């Protein structure tokens, strides 16, 4: 298990930004061949992304590549040049139904076979950015085993719904809940959409807190300055971590003494609370906290 709180978007045709991507501390980076690249530069961005995946040492930083959708003339060429280089995942935009994932899956199978890679070895992060996609969330999440994450595409979703994104973001409450629920039911990760106003770190922090509370694995960032803010939102409350430690200690003690029920801070502690405490401690460890302090 690795921390995947933040995924930093990097435009595919910007080699200077790609080569420096690791210094911003994001848990993952996503090289974008889709919306961040002008139509006339799609070929160039693909060659740059492939060049970096083939020759550049990103250390242990996972690199996701967002390709162009199946409704564009770039889809197959993107898959053909990127899949053999085994990125951490292919982010597949505009998934509306399981058939969209299966189309990419079939193409990727062919490419993997030709490249001598194990079938299904390159994961898909399926992007849901339309009402139809959201409604098919679970079917898309379970369409094939290479789908390892659902990601919410907020920009396109507002366009599809014919609405404006508000600062509070309540219009995404249902879509976000649906994405998380489907992902959890399928046993895969869920990534939230970007906060587009990078001059509003407070708004980002509030939104990031919300999506942490909803159960998202991570959130996309469109600017390096957003990465530490997202990480701060994911940091468990130190008092909660200490309490979780007390719960686990009490539970262990009760087990040694053969008692079924324990009380911590005057409240009864049962199995789900112990499970939640264990989860919180493992998250705290994953995010670099030890005994409630950030390392």
């Amino acid at each position, binding site marked *: 298990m690795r921390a995947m709180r933040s995924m930093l978007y990097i435009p595919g*045709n*910007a*080699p*200077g930004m790609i*080569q*420096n991507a690791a210094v911003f501390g994001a848990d993952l980076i996503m090289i974008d061949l889709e919306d961040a690249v002008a*139509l*006339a*530069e*799609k*070929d*160039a961005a693909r*060659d*740059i992304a*492939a*060049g*970096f995946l*083939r*020759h*550049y040492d990103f250390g242990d930083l996972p690199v996701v590549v967002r390709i162009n959708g199946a409704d564009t*003339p*770039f889809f197959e060429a993107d898959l053909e040049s990127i899949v053999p280089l085994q990125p951490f995942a292919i982010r597949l935009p505009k998934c509306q139904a399981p058939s969209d994932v299966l189309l990419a899956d079939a193409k990727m199978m062919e490419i993997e076979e030709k490249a001598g890679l194990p079938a299904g070895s390159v994961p898909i992060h399926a992007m849901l950015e339309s009402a139809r996609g959201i409604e098919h969330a679970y079917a898309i999440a379970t369409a094939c085993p290479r789908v390892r994450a659902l990601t919410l595409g907020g920009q396109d979703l507002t366009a599809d719904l014919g609405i404006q994104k508000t600062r509070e973001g309540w219009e995404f409450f249902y879509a976000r809940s649906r994405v998380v629920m489907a992902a959890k039911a399928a046993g895969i990760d869920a990534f939230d959409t970007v906060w587009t106003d990078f001059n509003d770190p407070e708004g980002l922090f509030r939104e990031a807190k919300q999506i942490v509370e909803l159960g998202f694995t991570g959130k996309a960032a469109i600017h390096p300055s957003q990465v530490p803010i997202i990480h701060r939102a994911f940091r468990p409350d130190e008092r909660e971590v200490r309490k979780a430690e007390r719960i686990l200690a009490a539970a262990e003690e009760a087990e040694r003494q053969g008692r079924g029920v324990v009380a911590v801070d005057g409240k009864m502690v049962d199995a789900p609370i112990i499970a939640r405490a264990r989860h919180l401690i493992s998250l705290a460890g994953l995010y670099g906290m030890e005994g409630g302090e950030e390392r």
Partner: protein
Amino acid sequence: MEIAQAGTLESADCLVTVAPAEEFGLDYRGGNRKIYGERTRKLVLETLKRFGISEVQVTIQDQGALELVIRARLETALKRATRGGMAS
């Protein structure tokens, strides 16, 4: 083959121009010219060989690009030059 270009003049990038010529020629410009001239010449010749092209004038304005970036830009320019389309 047509004249084609790829890349930008942004920092850490390069602008590569390829044009039909009677023989191979390389014009490598930029602050790193002296340090990386030989390396760049080698990677250009290797790439041209892979593409099966020898009669070409290659111009590279290097803004401090990594070797992999110069190679990628040259590949894009050559594909554009030989397929006649910008977004092939």
